[in-house]
Each structure stands twice: as C-alpha cells, then as structure tokens.
C-alpha cells in the first residue's frame, strides 16, 4: 500500500527572470514498510521534495497523497492533524527541546495532539525502549551525545501511529558509527511498517534504503533496481 505518492509534482519559486524550478514533474511512490533514499547534490531539489511530501509547502502543480489522502483537498486543520498524527520529521540538527527530558521530547507530539500526559509518556517510553534508549529516558538533551540526540529525535518522529517518516540528512552531523546507528534505527522503524523517505548526499547512508532515487536539477533522473541478495558478493574470486 502506498503511504506517500507524488504525482507529476513541480515547484517553481519566483517569477519571470527570477523563476527557479526547484522540482520538475517528479513522481514517487513509497509503500508501507519501505525506505526510499533521495540522493542528489545540494540545490538539486531534495529538500523541497521533502517539505512538499510533508505538506509544509504546496506544489505549483501535481498531486501529493499521504496515506491515500490528497493534500490539496484537505483543510489547513486537516493537514495540521495529518502532520501531528501520521508524519514524523527528522532534521540534521535534531531540534529537541532543551527543557524537556528525552522521554518528554518523544511524548510531546502525542500530547500536542491531545493525548493524556500519562498515555503519551507511556507511548514515548515504549518507543525509546524499542530503540534501545530506555536508560536515557530521563536525561535532558545536553546530557546526551550527538548520536543519542538524533536517535531520540527519530523516536519522537515515529511515536504513536506514524505512517511516514521524512528525514533530511539525518546523520549529516554525526561520525560514521553514530550515522550507522541512526540508519539502523530508521531501517528498524521501516521493518515495523513505517514508510520512510531519507534525503541525503551520502551514498553510505543511502545504501540502507530499499530503493535509491537520484535527483538532479529538480528531476528524478534515475533509481536503483532492487538489489540481488548479498550472497552474490560472497564467494567471488577477486
């Protein structure tokens, strides 16, 4: 089942001579439980694709469907509700609230959506435990390492009944060991059924995805075909 569908999406900023085509006729389909990486150089339109997929921006033309719902037909409140309940965001710079503990940060989206404090905290703690962060639950962000902060941010993005995770260079500021831990977490979230779109210029991170799409000058120019199993790499005489 498709969780995110972009149909012929274009996005133009500015007018006349200052017109910039950030996206041109982009179509993308991300199914339940699958992880898609979007790779491309800076300025290629990767981040615009993500903000449009997350209903933070409106496309100039084309259609965006999240969990089967056409964003263009939804009210502002409806979109806000969709963002709170169904979509999780992860950014390069974590964006945790410094005055809240890890567990409180994770529970926050549920509380903002009207869940009782106790229920929200329980759900938050459950996600932290699933992601191996239970012992960090009562730490404040400044007591966590960069890698731990980003993992808490991912826990916050998948808490509750989220269907779609949108990540913009989620491990850009981390060393390779922590970057791998972050990608493992996103991968694990997908195995539990969430759909993820990860934007990155880093091939090692992209290689965690089931499918990698390549974007250039606002167009999807290519994508990987499903890889054969790793057995094909082993046992070669090299």
């Amino acid at each position: 089942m498709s969780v995110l569908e972009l149909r012929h999406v274009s996005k133009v900023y500015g007018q006349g001579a200052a017109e910039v085509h950030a996206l041109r006729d982009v179509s993308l389909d991300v199914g339940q439980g699958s992880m898609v990486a979007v790779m491309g150089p800076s300025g290629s339109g990767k981040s615009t694709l993500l903000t449009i997929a997350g209903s933070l921006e409106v496309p100039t033309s084309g259609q965006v469907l999240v969990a089967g719902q056409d964003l263009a037909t939804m009210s502002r409140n409806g979109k806000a509700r969709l963002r709170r309940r169904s979509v999780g965001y992860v950014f390069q710079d974590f964006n945790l609230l410094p005055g809240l503990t890890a567990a409180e940060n994770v529970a926050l989206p549920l509380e903002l959506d009207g869940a009782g404090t106790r229920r929200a905290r329980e759900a938050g703690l459950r996600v932290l435990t699933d992601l191996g962060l239970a012992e960090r639950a009562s730490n404040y962000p400044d007591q966590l390492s960069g890698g731990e902060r980003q993992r808490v941010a991912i826990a916050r993005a998948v808490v509750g009944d989220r269907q779609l995770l949108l990540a913009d260079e989620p491990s850009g500021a981390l060393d390779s060991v922590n970057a791998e831990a972050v990608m493992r977490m996103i991968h694990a979230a997908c195995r539990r059924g969430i759909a993820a779109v990860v934007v990155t210029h880093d091939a090692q991170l992209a290689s965690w995805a089931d499918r990698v799409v390549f974007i250039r000058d606002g167009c999807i120019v290519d994508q990987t075909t499903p890889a054969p199993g790793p057995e094909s790499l082993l046992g070669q005489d090299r």
Partner: protein
Amino acid sequence: MSVRHALLALLSEGPKYGLRLREEFEERTGEVWPLNIGQVYTTLQRLERDGLVESDGDGQDSPQKRFRITGDGEAELATWLRTPPEMSAPPRDELVIKVLVALRLPGTDVREVIQAHRRYLVELMQQWTRIKEDDAGRDLALGLAVDAELFRLDAVVRWLDAADGRIKRTAIEPFSPKRDDLPRLRRKTGVTR
C-alpha cells in the same frame, strides 16, 4: 591478502596442524576474501624453507603435520603489519578513463555516463549494507571488511559527484588551466590529450 602472512598470523596464536590451519584459514577469510586452498600447503612449504615456520614430523607432507612460527616469522609478521601497502602511484583507473573518454566524445552526455556508474556503485553498496544489516554488528571481522568495501565504493561515488559538479561548473564558466604545469601530472595520471 597474502596467504603467506595470513598463515603466519594464524600460527602466531600457537602451533597448529596443517588440517586445522586450512580450516581456520577458510573460516576466517573465506567469507570476504575467498582464496585458493591449494595454496595453503605450498605456502607452508615455502615458509618452512625460508625459516619463518618449523614443523615436527618426518618431512612428509600430511594434514597431520604440526607447524609453529619461528622468531624470524614473528618479526616478518610484525614488519608486514606495519608496512603500508603501495598506494602512492595512481592506478590506471578504468572508471576515470571512461569518464575522460566520454568527455571528449562528441554527442556523449558525460553526466549520463557518470550517473550509470553512480547507480551501479550505489546498488553494490546496498548489497554490502544488507550484509551488515543481517549480521546486526555481531561479527567484528565481517563488519570491518564490509566497511572497507563500503568506504572504497563511497570514495568512487564521491569522485563521480565531484566530477559531475566540476563538469556542470565548467559548462557555465569554461576552465582554462595554466598549461605549463600540466604535462608532468598528465603523464603521471595517464591522462592523454
């Protein structure tokens, strides 16, 4: 990896029978660097001839023959571990040559050529990453070997990205090098004009 030094490394853990050496060699290197097992016995003979290992027994080759490393063998192993492999001379890289050829070929979209290689490399990286995923970090040696492949492939993808960016920029503002400095480097890198 050299069979010679792999065997010295196995023997530095203690004396071992030929058969056991063959098994361990297969276990430890087989997954990522499969090598010809027939080489194990010929290499042991050469190591013995060079005084780097010694064996008990009557000189007959048999899987029951036991080998141990000598002092010279340990010194050889220590030197080998610390000697950087030859990496200073740029290799004649087939991929670099293909991109350089594409650059000069009329009617060829170099960036499309670059993308074809980029996609292939990322697909390979996806396969290597699956191994890490399945293993979940339990096998340290396998993890390190897979990382080495991933970093190597990643470096090539980054070169392609840099080439792509450079070509795009050059199309906007043509690049004119100071010609005097270049012939020697061209020879060294195998770039011909």
